[in-house]
């Protein structure tokens, strides 16, 4: 998955989105720390979170992503145990990327 910097490089650079970049970098750093503490792979966390938010269960998520069901169970269990503030950070980070990609398309 592209980092905040990579996405910034690919987008049109303006003064207004410089501020956004700094915000995103800060959020990315915080999300990286949360992922490290929980042994989350960010490339896997993003589709897990998105598919969960769309109402898929663990098995369906595993079938979509081609991973072991126990891996998805580990992620969902760990996500539920996060502090609300940490979960919100991850959710915002993932949704930011989705919005950027939707705008690009």
């Amino acid at each position, binding site marked *: *998955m592209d980092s905040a910097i990579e996405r910034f490089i690919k987008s049109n650079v303006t003064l207004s989105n410089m501020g956004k970049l700094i915000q995103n970098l800060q959020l990315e750093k915080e999300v990286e720390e949360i992922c490290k503490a*929980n*042994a989350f*792979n960010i*490339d896997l966390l993003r589709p897990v979170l998105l598919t969960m938010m769309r109402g898929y269960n663990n098995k369906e998520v595993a079938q*979509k*992503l*081609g991973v*072991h069901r*126990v891996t998805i169970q580990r992620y969902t269990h760990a996500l539920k145990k996060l502090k609300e503030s940490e979960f919100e950070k991850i959710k915002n980070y993932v949704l930011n990327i989705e919005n950027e990609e939707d705008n690009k398309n």
Partner: protein
Amino acid sequence: MKKIIKINNGKKLHSPARMYTKKDLEEMGVDYVEGAIYFNRAKPDQSFPEISEFVRKNMIVLNYPDCSATVFSEEVLKKVVDKQIELNSDFIVFPYFKKENDFDVKSKVDLCEELKLNRNFSKEIVLEMSYKSEMPPQELSDLSHNFDYLSVFYGAPFGGYPSFSKVVKRVVTFKALTGKRVFTIAVPFKFSGEHNKDCRFMPCFSLVAEGWAKNWKGGGKKQVIKVVDPQDLKSKDYTSWLESGYKPETILNLTNRTVADLFRKESKILRGEFEKYLTDGVLNEISNLTPLTYEDYIYGKFYEQYTVPLIFSYKEKLILELFKENPVFGKFDKSGLKLLEGAIRRKYNPLSVFKLIQFLDNLVQREEQITIQELVKRANNFGFEN
């Protein structure tokens, strides 16, 4: 680089696609993997196992006749091919035979040609050969109009640089000459590093081929308990883990258990779970690599000797998917495109290749009247402009 490819019968293949066996799916706790390949293996004298409706609907079915222990004969070849056709397989594979020579491969190609010439036959054909084959690339390329995919049979539970580089060389040269896709079958997940005892976890075949199947033959009984360290992807025994900076009481975030727990003789289930989490994580990281992140990842995670073939294989993927298959360049004639391809190939690293192709794509879309000569000139100057 992920791509969705529509095969002849309309089914969608999520490339690069891992091939899953029934045992893999059971172990994963799933009924199917969307858009992947179902590897339904059977010996030539056996019937293919039944396939579930879930699999049939959601996966590409490869009924694979395992002839790796069978000496080549045209009779057996015809029998295994007919069986696949009867079963309405999504692909028809002409498998590797034990110690087959290039003459045997050409006999397989002859049967491919017969099928292709049959007006009622519309399936995609996969021709398989061993990575050890010495058939010159140009000769294979000259025969390639008779099949749709090449499959390279590796057949090793543990890999090494000499065999790995041969596999990659075959894949890369075939793609470069034909623009066709390649599968790799019976590939190892672990490779030797600095020496034979240095074992590296490197499930990298999605970076080499468009589809791959893990080796199904065991590597022999292990005497010592070894587990792959997520920090450096080396397979190590307990002592080596402690020498790498872990303490016995260090808690591993992947399982929330200690290193000591992981290496207890009775912790077989725990080690199995650890391996599943690790494998899923690494395979996912690899499948999400981009031209921007590729080199850092492979130089950081894999033993350096393997990085050069991996650079070449990724470069070839980019050229195939972003240039050769790009409809934007379809308006130019073949000879012109060959010149342009030559200019693209002069770039060594994948990121430069990616940026150049993107640049050319934008140029062609912006300047409708641009000639191929101008494009070649711009490609040769790319990166050197003020």
